[in-house]
């Protein structure tokens, strides 16, 4: 077992993932420390989303270890629902519950998983909606909100569980350009407050501003990692240079 280090939140050791015959992750290892904002970049099909989704076992890892706060969550003896309450997740397509209003979306998990009272959950939920700038939309259904607003509700919904770490899976790539800013603002605010975050995104501005470290994931491997400045300004690997050349 690795040496206990209070600052390491998630340690990924030699993570492999196969979809049938396709080898998507080919041995990814990294550590995420508390308070760190890690951006994951790379060409599509490179395994970014799979990497993220393996870390809360929305996808079952084929082999390797994922140690969250000292607990190997790939072990069959782990209650994955408990682990997931500590990991907030924000999806590309928001995935708000369409039959519930914004505030009901936010308080659903606190009430049923954390067994919080309706009153407390509503209070906290309203505070979070205020925080993401949607206090006045609490009683709207998702289909009455714009994409940017929906994504901000989704962030509030994840935050309502008071997670230790937040995962973002391309949170702005399904948004119209004019709505990207409002979502990134909320994410920057969270980063400033010290939230540990893993963000799959190609928003260079946000990454430069908020990320501490960039992982370049291509062909199922971390081909390069470093600070945003290092990666963007003098990428060492050919794969990184190719990729940055395409998105810039």
């Amino acid at each position, binding site marked *: 077992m690795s040496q206990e280090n209070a600052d390491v939140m998630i340690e990924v050791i030699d993570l492999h993932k196969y979809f049938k015959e396709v080898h998507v992750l080919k041995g990814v290892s990294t550590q995420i420390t508390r308070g760190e904002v890690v951006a994951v970049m790379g060409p599509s099909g490179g395994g970014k989303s799979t990497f993220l989704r393996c870390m809360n076992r*929305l996808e079952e890892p084929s082999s390797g270890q994922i140690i969250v706060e000292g607990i190997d969550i790939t072990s069959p003896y782990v209650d994955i629902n408990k682990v997931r*309450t500590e990991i907030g997740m924000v*999806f590309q397509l928001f995935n708000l519950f369409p039959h519930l209003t914004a505030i009901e979306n936010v308080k*659903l998990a606190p009430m049923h998983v954390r067994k919080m009272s309706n009153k407390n959950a509503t209070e906290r939920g309203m505070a979070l909606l205020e925080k993401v700038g949607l206090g006045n939309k609490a009683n709207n259904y998702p289909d009455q909100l714009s994409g940017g607003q929906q994504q901000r509700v989704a962030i509030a919904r*994840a935050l309502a569980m008071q997670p230790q770490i937040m995962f973002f899976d391309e949170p702005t790539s399904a948004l119209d350009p004019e709505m990207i800013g409002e979502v990134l603002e909320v994410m920057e605010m969270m980063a400033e407050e010290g939230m540990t975050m893993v963000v799959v995104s190609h928003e260079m501005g946000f990454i430069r501003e908020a990320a501490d470290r960039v992982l370049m994931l291509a062909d199922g491997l971390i081909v390069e990692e470093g600070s945003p400045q290092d990666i963007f300004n003098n990428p060492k690997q050919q794969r990184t240079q190719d990729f940055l050349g395409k998105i810039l």
Partner: protein
Amino acid sequence: MSSVTPTPSPSIGALRYGHGEIPWYRRRELIWGALAVLSIFGLLLPKPGALSTGDRLAIAVFFVLVLVWAGLYLSDVLKPEWSKTVVAFGVLGLAALLFYRYADAEWARLGHVFFNWEMMREPMQGGDTGWSILLAGLKITLQMAFFSAIFSTILGLLLAVLRSFNNPVLNVFIIAYIDFFRAMPIIVLMILIYYALPYTGITLSPIVSGVLALSLNASAYVSEIFRAGIMSVSHGQIEAARALGLNSVQTMRLVILPQAFRVVLPPLASNYVASAKDTAVCSAITILELLKSAMQVQAFYANPTALIAATGIYLVFLVILTRLAGLLETRMRTRQATAR
């Protein structure tokens, strides 16, 4: 770049009344002229009585021409809606009129045998009239329809939920259940439950046997409907729920089923209507529901009017049921769209 000069588009009015560009089927002279010709043709049709082959041919040609004319009229998008309604009903009325006039029918006897409403009001030996017996039957039919709807929904939902967990062993049994009860004619199922089960020591009353058979049959269909509803909920919803830490039961109860119910309501309602009609099969196991009551009244009077009356009652209550389902559906849809 060469600029394209747009050709000035002529106004609709010019198209209609200007330069002879009105399509032939839209020309007033043709439409109304043809109608006038048809009217004269209609007046010249032979008198009822002994009809020669030529007479029959003339009547047939007349009606076919009317149909062609109506087809032309109805297919013209510019004609107002109300006039099309008039034309459509006119054609139906004409067909009825022609049939009434030329059919070699004994209308009075037909009425006496099949539509003998006075007889339905006469008290029979127990003092009950035909109508009161039918209404008593309706009550039993409604009760059976109600309870089999409840039980089939519970059973079908349970099967669909269990099936959605994709346990291969369990699913073999569920699929076998569904296939079996969908394939089995209700009447056979009912007779087996009522007449064969007693040999195994299980004796059920006719009503219980009937409701059981109806529920088992309908649950197979209901379960397929619910399964389709559950599968219509996108996988992202499940992922979002699970990522929040909800377990699979909570995800099903709080996220999937509420969304599935909306999708499922229209087909479910039409399934209830169908299985309400299936209660007629219960007449095979001595239950005095609507159809069986009607057959008793028919036997007593030696007159089938009661069957026609029962059909009318089925029609009324099934139409009401269908409309209620439709109302519920629109209400559910608008509930989401309000507060905008």
